[in-house]
């Protein structure tokens, strides 16, 4: 955890410094008084975030979190890990689905999404899968679009 904290704290520090700069260059609206400028509250909170980042950095350095080594077999293990692959597939399906939303009819794209998911993650045999995916998508569409009049993509 110390290593993760080390990286996080550096990201936090760099990010808050960048944003503090952004707060300073914001318009000041002098006629309202300096205390009411839109940049003031973000400036304060980014400063607090900066302090927190420094505390976290100090703590992780004490725990020797800076000893980060990247070896080839780490990457290889990452590449071969089942969990990483599953994560990547799940995420890309999600992104793919959202990308096509609004371009293809909701029921079709949703059914395809569920079907692919169950197929890849081996949820069940294909014809049950087929029924599940179509039935769920259609039921959801019917419930929301027709009965509740909720806008659907």
């Amino acid at each position: 955890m110390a290593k993760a904290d080390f990286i996080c704290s550096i990201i936090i520090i760099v990010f808050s410094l960048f944003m503090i700069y952004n707060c300073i260059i914001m318009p000041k609206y002098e006629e309202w008084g300096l205390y009411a400028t839109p940049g003031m509250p973000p400036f304060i909170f980014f400063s607090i975030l900066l302090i927190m980042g420094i505390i976290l950095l100090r703590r992780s350095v004490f725990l020797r979190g800076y000893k980060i080594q990247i070896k080839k077999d780490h990457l290889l293990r990452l590449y071969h890990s089942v969990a990483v692959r599953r994560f990547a597939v799940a995420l890309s399906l999600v992104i793919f689905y959202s990308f096509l939303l609004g371009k293809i009819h909701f029921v079709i794209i949703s059914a395809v999404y569920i079907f692919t998911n169950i197929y890849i993650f081996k949820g069940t045999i294909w014809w049950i899968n087929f029924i599940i995916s179509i039935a769920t998508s259609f039921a959801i569409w019917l419930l929301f679009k027709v009965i509740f009049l909720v806008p659907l993509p």
Partner: protein
Amino acid sequence: MKKILISLLIFVLFFCITGIVFSSEVWQPKRIITLIVPWGAGGASDLTARILAAEMEPILGTKIAIVNQPGASGSIGAKSVFDAKHDGHTWLGSSNSPTATYQVQGLTPDISHTVWQAYFAIYTPCIICVNPDSVITDWESLVKAFKTREVAVASAGIGAGGHTAAETFAAKMDVKYKHVPYKGGNPAIVSTVAGETEVVMQLSMEVADMLRAKKLRAIAVMADEPLLISGVDKIPSVTDFVKDFPSVGFYFGLLMPKDIPEDAKETISKAFKIAANSEAIKKMAEAKSSVAVSIYGEEGIKEMGKAASQFGWLLYDVGVIETSPEEYDIPRL
């Protein structure tokens, strides 16, 4: 209780009927109409839109789904209506003023006020109200207070009704004031009721109940005519005190892109005309101390132009916006 059952029955029947496509010459909505209200649920625009939608549904023979899409002074919602297909199935439920000034405010740089066809059903003027404990009791003491000390005026935000009214007042009377913006009309009014601010100039629609309950005191209405609210003494018009004081008031209703099919416009206009003259709108106008109007067609487009020049130039004159409305061909009235 019977009504529930009947409504349910109608409800079910409705979905059966919507499946059948009408083949008459008159334009009919082909699917559910989406009415985007670019403000939170429960506000003035939302109330007007909901009543109009409920009245127009049976006439148009389709359901109207209301979506609240607040954010960035309502410009996000206006933009999504404009970006949708211009086929008469996506409407905007808002008011004349912010919609007409989104372009000059730089919120939607590419969408001019001239693209909108307006259908306004409610007109509500701004009322100058004070906290009942305030030393301000009438017009003289109001002007005196503004001239002698710094008066805190609450508003619903930059460019909102109360702010526009206050700026008009300040420009006309040549006074300064302390502008205290809130997030919405209701919090602004509450702040005056609670005594955090002394004056609020929000819409008559929003202050009516507080006036009735004597939690606010009305000084004048920013219209040519005095305003009568049931249960409150007659509110004098500002023109009683200053002859050529411009009226500050807002129209609420529906807006849609002007270039939707002509036949669709015609059908919607017809339905709107009936809805705007319905009991429900009249009842709401009475309860919320505003005026029921029926503005559409050319007149609606004209009102948008008027709003763009009145409020656009005002915002420019007080320095809220930097680009002159002239650059967008908005003449000074």
